[in-house]
Structure formats: C-alpha cells, structure tokens
C-alpha cells in the first residue's frame, strides 16, 4: 500500500510542477503576444466557427465565407493596414527565361493577357454589369465556394490590377528585413545594397509598358508565330488570382498563342510552397503568388551559385484583398493579445501585414 501511496504522491507532485510551469506562462497577460498559427483557409473558417481561434488573417474568399456564415466579422481590411499595398503578382522563372529564346515575346503577351483580364473583371464587377453573373460563376469555380453572396462580397474586397509596383515592393523588402525574416548570410551573398536595389532587380516594368501600348489590339492580331506551352503555378482557391483563371477560361492565353498547362504540384497551398517546390524545382515557368514569398525565397531558398530560386516579376495581379476576421466578441486588434490567430504561414503577405499592424499598435506577435 505504501508504494502505491508513494506513486500517487509522485504523480500529484509532478502534476503540480507541470501545472506551475503552465501557470507561469499565463501570468504575464498584459505583455502576452498574439499567437499566429498556420492553418488552411478551410480550417480557419471552421475553427473560427467552433470558437477555437479568436480570428484569422487570410485572402479572399475565406473572410467572405466566414462572415456570410456569421462565424465572425471583419475587423480590418488590409487596405486599412497599408492603403493600396501590392499583393499577388505574375512572376517568371529565371532558368526558364534564359533557356527560352523568345521569352521576352511570351512575357509581353502574358502581361497583355493580364491587362485584358483585369479590365474584363473590373467592368464586370458592378452588379448591374451584363457580365456580372458570369464573373460570379468564375469566382465560385476558382474559389471553390457555393455561396453567391460570399463570392460577390469577396470580389468587392479585392482591387485587381496589372501594374507593377516598385515602391510597394521596396517597402515590403524593408519590412521583411526589419522583421528578421531574411537569412542574413544569404542576404549578404545576394549582393544587393538595399531594399530599392533589390526591388529594381526583381521587377521588370517594360512588359506592362508594351501591354499598355497594345491594349486596344485584338489579342489574336498579336499572337505568337509559334504557339508555346507554359507550365503555370498558382495558389489554391485564391480570389486574388482570378485574372489568371478568367483569362485561362475565356481563352485569352490561347488567343495570343500561349497554351497553359497546370504546373506539377499546382495549385499550391501558399506562396512559400510555390517558390520552393515550383520555381526553385523548375516545375513552374510562369506563376502567380504573393510578392512577399517571392522576395523572401529569392534570397533564403536561393542557391546563389546557380540562382535557382531566381524569379522576376512582370505584372501585378491585385492590391489589397486580405482581411483580418475576428470572433464576434472581439472589438479591437488589441483584444487579440494572448489569443490564437490563424494565418497561411510564415513569410506570406498576410504574415507581413499582420506584423505591420501589430507594429502600429505596439503589440508583439509570435509565430
């Protein structure tokens, strides 16, 4: 009996110690960070509904789905964190570029298709547009959703663009540097002097310039002489990349002589995956993804002797379009302190935006 008692005592003691360690974590409530936890968009909606997380920051359509279901409310649009911030972009793989003899011709037409598609979407966005229903259908298909109201809501939150944005990219690079995300050794290897030096090397503006010059041309009239096949990478159910989907479904790429095949591994879970498993592994020729993953992985994941993760940005996809959604009982960003918030992963645009907002409010964020 004595031994049993001793065991019991031991167990109680250990539980007590474990409990103390646990309590120790909870005492400094005021200075507790907001805990970012990586999860998929589906998970975010479900967990917010179940009350397991206090909120999430995500691309559309997930915020629209969560709010139309009544699981939470919009706390902050990303345009309020940084007005007109760049988001997704169209990028090409550098290895593909140097091994393709008419790569410039192809990229000009990709930029033109992007322009046409963005114009179509922007014209079809108002609910009284004759094309609105068709656009909603594209949104439902691409976003993997069924609710038409949510589809419309998510469209209104995204600002579709085709222009590149060098100052925006520069700001992102600076922020990513400040937040300690770059591998410092790799940054030195890259040889860039500063953020704007890097941004200028990353973004090429003349493809969009060409597209703007030819914006009134019929797509078929500027078609490539010989059709080419492009392996395209994109993100799963990301409404930001709707211009790609619309252009693909409406046959714009075919019109200019580009045959799109979906790259191996696409659609990708997030931009980090697209960079590492797509561009770096040479399975993606051209793709769309958020600009922060491009910025981060062209440094961190790059082997500078080969420059295998080198990509170039040729056009924009969208500005803004991410939302911080919170549970109904939360009224301010500060209320998230000490709570768990879902996000799509480290190094994503949502991650950087969330850190920027925390910086403004003087809060700490752990990830």
């Amino acid at each position, binding site marked *: *009996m*004595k*031994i*049993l008692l001793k*065991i019991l005592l031991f*167990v109680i003691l*250990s*539980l007590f110690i*474990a409990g103390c*360690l*646990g309590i120790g974590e909870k005492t400094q409530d005021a200075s507790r*960070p907001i*805990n*970012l*936890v*990586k*999860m998929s968009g589906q998970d975010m909606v479900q967990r917010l509904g*179940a009350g*397991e997380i206090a909120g999430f920051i995500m691309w559309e359509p997930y915020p629209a789905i969560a709010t139309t279901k009544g699981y939470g409310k919009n706390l902050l649009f990303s345009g309020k964190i940084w007005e007109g911030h760049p988001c997704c972009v169209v990028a090409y793989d550098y290895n593909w570029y140097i091994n393709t003899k008419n790569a410039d011709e192809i990229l000009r037409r990709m930029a033109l298709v992007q322009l046409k598609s963005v114009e179509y979407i922007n014209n079809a966005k108002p609910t009284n547009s004759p094309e609105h229903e068709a656009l909603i259908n594209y949104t439902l298909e691409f976003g993997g959703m069924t609710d038409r109201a949510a589809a419309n809501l998510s469209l209104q939150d995204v600002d579709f663009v085709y222009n590149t944005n060098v100052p925006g990219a520069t700001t992102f690079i600076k922020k990513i540097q*400040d*937040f*300690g*995300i770059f*591998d410092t*050794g790799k940054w030195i290897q890259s040889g860039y002097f500063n953020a704007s030096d890097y941004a200028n090397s990353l973004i090429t503006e003349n493809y969009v310039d060409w597209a703007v010059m030819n914006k009134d041309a019929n797509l078929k009239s500027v078609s490539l002489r010989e059709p080419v096949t492009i392996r395209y990478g994109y993100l799963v159910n990301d409404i930001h990349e709707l211009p790609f989907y619309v252009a693909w479904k409406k046959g714009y790429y075919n019109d200019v002589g580009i045959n799109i095949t979906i790259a191996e591994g696409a659609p990708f879970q*997030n931009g*980090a995956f697209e*960079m*590492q498993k797509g561009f770096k592994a040479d399975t993606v020729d051209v793709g769309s993804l958020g600009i922060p993953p491009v910025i*981060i*992985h062209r*440094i*961190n*994941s790059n*082997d500078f*002797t*080969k420059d295998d*993760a080198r990509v170039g940005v040729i056009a924009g996809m969208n500005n803004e379009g991410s939302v911080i959604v919170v549970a109904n009982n939360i009224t301010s960003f500060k209320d998230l302190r000490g709570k*768990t918030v879902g996000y799509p*992963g*480290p*190094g994503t645009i949502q991650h950087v935006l969330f*850190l*920027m907002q*925390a*910086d403004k409010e*003087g*809060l*700490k*964020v*752990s*990830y």
Partner: protein
Amino acid sequence: MKIDSERKGLAINILSLFCFLLLWHALVMMARNDIFNIPFMRLRDIPTPIETWYALLGSMFTKTYGPALTYGIADHTRASLLRVVEGGIIAFIVGVPVGIGVGYSKLLGNILNPIIEIVRNMPPMAWIPLAIFILVAGGSIFIVFIGMVFPIILNTVHGVKSTDSRLIDAAKTLGASESKIVTLVVIPSAFPSIMTGLRIGLGVGWMAIVAAEMVIRSPVGLGYFIWNMGDLGRYAEMVAGMIVIGVIGYVMNISILVLQKRFIRWVD
C-alpha cells in the same frame, strides 16, 4: 583491461561521429561544386555541419524583431518537453493500473486484451485527425498519451506476469490478502519492467510529439519550429532543430537507464 577497452570504445565512438560529420560536409560540398550528387536529391541545399552549428547558436534563444517575437530553440524544446511530460504522466496514471489489472486478473485480461490489441496497433499519428476534429485543446498531449500508454501497459503486464509464482504462493501461505500481494509482491517485482515501458513510451512519445506539432499547429514546439524554418527556406535552422530533437530523445533514453540502475537495486 576493462577501462582500456572502454576507452577504446569511446575513441571509436567519437571518431565515427567525426567521420559522419566529415562525410556530410563532403557530400554537400561535392554537390555544390558539381562534382558528385546523389540522383533525385538537391544535396546542394543541405546546410553543411558548420552552417548548421552557427544556425543552432543563432536560433537558440528567443529574439524580437520589432513586433515579431521568434521563439528560440530553448523555448521550443521546453514546450515540447512539457507536452511529453504532461502526456506521459497521464499515460503513467492510466497505463500502470490497467497493466496490473490485465496482468494479474485473468477475467480483466480477457475483457481488455482484444481492445488493447487492436487500439495499440493504430500508430499515434493515425490519431492526429481525430485529435484535431474532436478535441478542443491539448491535441498534442493526447497524441503523446496514445503513443506512451501502450508500451507502459504492455510492459507492466509483462512484468506482472513474470512475477515469480513462488513468491506469490509464499505470501499466500503466510496469509497475505490480495491487495497486499499486489502492492508488496507484484508491483515491486514488476517495477523494472514498468520502467522499461516508460522508457520505450518516452521514445514513442517524443517521436509522436514532433509529428503532432507539425500538424496540430501551436505557436511553439520543436516540430512546429522545423516546419516553420522550412517554410521560410531557412534550411540550416531546420536541420539544427532536427539534430536537437535527436539529441533530446537520446538524452531522455539514457537518463531513464541511469535512473533505473540507481533506484532499482533489487534488480541485478
């Protein structure tokens, strides 16, 4: 003589570890210089041992960059260990009594054995989806519990069953009650086996926690850390984290062996 051979053994141990590091370094450097590469692998992206060492030092402690709080390996380790300890305590509380019951009583054995036999063959990782969808909190601790409880039960059963029947008979003839036989004869005799179960369980629990932390995401934990570093393309930190996981598993195993030798004097 004995000390000499022990020294020799230790020397070979150290030499082999050094050779492994050298081989690792050589493979990576050869791949980077396009001399030799194992097909279907991007060996050039693996950090060298030296890069890994610096990454380990650099990411050991928690740092803040403006609003960003990045936990160090020390904090990640603490969080993972805490989960293993919590899951392990629960597994111990549940596993030992169940094991004694199943080992000592034929009836209880017949009732519980089929259930144990089926459930123990579900790997802890197979419970992760269930833990995500059913449990509101403590998913990772639950996975550790699942990983640890069956080695503890099985080894306890084994220990109870291998109790010398003469000792039990002797206690019976001396008029000891059932409860006294269990507490004074069976448990002490089974104790080394229980400790073995705890040791094996800790090994399984440690593996399970790393897997669980990768899927059941919380902001802190070693499994979470290595996945996060991979996501950011910081492979040196990722490999450093993997090595820390291995070293901690090894240290846990060794320390229980030492404890076992120290405290269970009635075993030779």
